[in-house]
């Protein structure tokens, strides 16, 4: 089902930042058959992409509107900002939402305290620190659960 969905014409994802997360996501989406473009300001970053990556790459500064229009942002159904700079992620996400009205905007945010900037813009955020804390907390509670079981 997922496969057919991603084959739809409208499905076009822009990923900003080709780090570990960005490259991984780009590989996954492209393997699934979606059309993907990944933007990074360094050409070298694209080496992280797998040899089978079938999407596009664009070298440039995604905070510049000209770069985003080169990536045909107006046609995108989703924009994911995963650079290593929170502020860049916030700005690109806001440009995507406010100037181009992209339906699905997801930003990775290291610092959960900046949350108030996003809240009213309908931007989805992923915060690794919060996710890790939850996961570790779950693991810490596991042995207790096991003891109960025994």
């Amino acid at each position, binding site marked *: 089902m997922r496969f057919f969905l991603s084959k739809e014409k409208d499905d076009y994802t822009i990923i900003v930042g080709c780090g570990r997360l960005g490259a991984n996501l780009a590989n996954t989406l492209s393997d699934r058959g979606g059309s993907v473009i990944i933007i990074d300001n360094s050409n070298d970053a694209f080496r992280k992409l797998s040899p089978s990556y079938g999407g596009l790459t664009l070298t440039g500064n995604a905070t510049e509107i000209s770069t985003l229009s080169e990536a045909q942002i107006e046609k995108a159904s989703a924009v994911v900002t995963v650079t290593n700079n929170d502020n860049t992620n916030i700005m690109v996400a806001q440009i995507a939402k406010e100037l181009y009205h992209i339906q699905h905007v997801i930003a990775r945010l290291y610092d959960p305290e*900046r949350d*108030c*900037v996003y809240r009213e813009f309908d931007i989805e955020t992923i915060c690794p620190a919060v996710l890790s804390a939850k996961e570790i907390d779950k693991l810490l509670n596991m042995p207790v659960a096991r003891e109960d079981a025994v």
Partner: protein
Amino acid sequence: MKTQVLLIGGFQKTKYLSTSLIKKGYRVTAINADEKKCLSLAEIDKLSVYHGDGTKPFILEEANAQNADIAIALTERDDSNLVICELCKKKFNVKKTVALISDPKKTDFFYRMGIDSVVCAISAVANIIEQQAFLEEMATLVPIGEGRIKIAQVPISGTAPTVDKMLWEINLPKQVIIGCILRGDKSMIPRGDTRILAGDVLVLISSDKHETAAVQELTGW
């Protein structure tokens, strides 16, 4: 209560701006992420300096951003300046936020994000260079109201077409007025029947769109 101004990032600009603002009686606080620059800024009398990344809410809190009346983001990065202003506005309820940006294309976007005043250094400098290079006749030009209104000082040379004409005879755009005529060491407020002489310096108040046309009309340039 003194008006409190918070300057975030920027070194030379902060140095200059804080000195000038303190002189005018404002209470100024500066935040800088570089320790050495902080030490250098701390030498300025009456300036409170905080060391840290101004895009982090807790640093802004430490610097009492909630008490600031005006926050000015002067870092080199547009995205940092956007986030600083948004944090100041939304989290700390600062009344007025000013952002310095380097990409002129993003000016509108910044205004849409609720920033009160957006200053684009590159376009401002480019404008000044353009004036200096192409409107040599114009000595000084002061933009006010975000650059929408300009006060210009226009010297009239002997060859200008307006020499010996009365003001009502000159076909100036409606949005332009001649506020003052400097003649020798005297200054006079002109009326419609005042005659322009060679060597006069006119002080023009105009909207930015009509200023070039007005200067051309006056100097024949």
